[in-house]
């Protein structure tokens, strides 16, 4: 699965996610990626999210919408909302996954409960990126 979330200079937020699903899925199986509020969500008032991981887990938990809810109702930052929602999902359903989030203030949220998640963002002419917990790399755009 691949995904992107952006906020432009006018504060417009967009999110996009694309996938081949999971290896060995039954033909006809639909995952979280095309489901709004699960694989993808964007609202200029709340933020934008793209998720990845075990699709059945993410769609049953409504991961993207849970992150939006934490930002809206619990006033959590993008990072705290993303981290808490991923942990709650795995705590409750065992399956793992991750998400990237941008809130209306341009704050970022990056978290995953899987072993690894590839992530990268560009800000002020620099690329920040990583794939393992606790490791961040940087290079000029």
């Amino acid at each position, binding site marked *: *699965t*691949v*995904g*992107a*979330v*952006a*906020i*432009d*200079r*006018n504060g*417009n*937020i*967009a*999110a*996009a*996610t*694309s*996938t*081949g699903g*999971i*290896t*060995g*899925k*039954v*033909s006809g199986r*639909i995952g979280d*990626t*095309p489901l*709004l509020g699960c*694989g*993808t969500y*964007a609202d*200029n008032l*709340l933020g934008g999210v793209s998720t*990845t*991981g*075990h*699709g059945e*887990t993410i769609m049953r938990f409504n991961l993207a919408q849970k992150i939006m809810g934490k930002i809206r109702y619990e006033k959590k930052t993008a990072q705290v909302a993303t981290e808490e929602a991923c942990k709650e999902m795995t705590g409750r359903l*065992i*399956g*793992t*996954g991750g998400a*990237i989030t*941008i809130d209306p203030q*341009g704050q970022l949220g*990056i978290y995953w409960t*899987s*072993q*690894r*998640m*590839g*992530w*990268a*963002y*560009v800000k002020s002419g620099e*690329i920040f*990126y990583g794939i393992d917990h606790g490791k961040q*790399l940087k290079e000029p*755009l």
Partner: protein
Amino acid sequence: MEPILIVHGGAGNITDARCPGKLNGMKQALRAGIKHLIPTEGLSAGSALDAVEAAVCIMECDENFNAGYGACLNLEEKVELEASIMEGGELKAGCVTLLHDIMHPISVARCVMQNTKHTFLGGVAAQKFALEHGFEQLPEDSLITEDARLALKEFKECQAKGLDTTFARTELDANQKSNEQGPS
């Protein structure tokens, strides 16, 4: 507001061997997408929607990612693709599922959002819609990579041994060093 673009390249038990390809692919996606957010000479700034579509398109072409070229295989050794895109102003969105042999499902999803009164198309109708709107139907199975075949072969071997495959791998880890059936 300072424009920002963030991408992910998938989550799961990604093997060491696949890390460099993913990291490089994501950086390429950022470089392609950010052009739509920051005006460069002669090019006016696009929109967040253009930026996320451009970034995802780059990764759909890259076999290091489970999307487009290099996508996972289903039990029938076929690629079935799905995507969604959404903008936060009017909450417009486009979603597609069960596409096959089309390189950019994300662009088909955007086409659904911008050219129909609907939000979600799936299956044969979605495939027909894509072809009617100028998307190329690639030769059958041309999106399949050797890694994907190996990952499916390994998955079937695990199934045959009666190992739990509930959390089928979301990432191709055909060259996973250990045979552990990692979650998700």
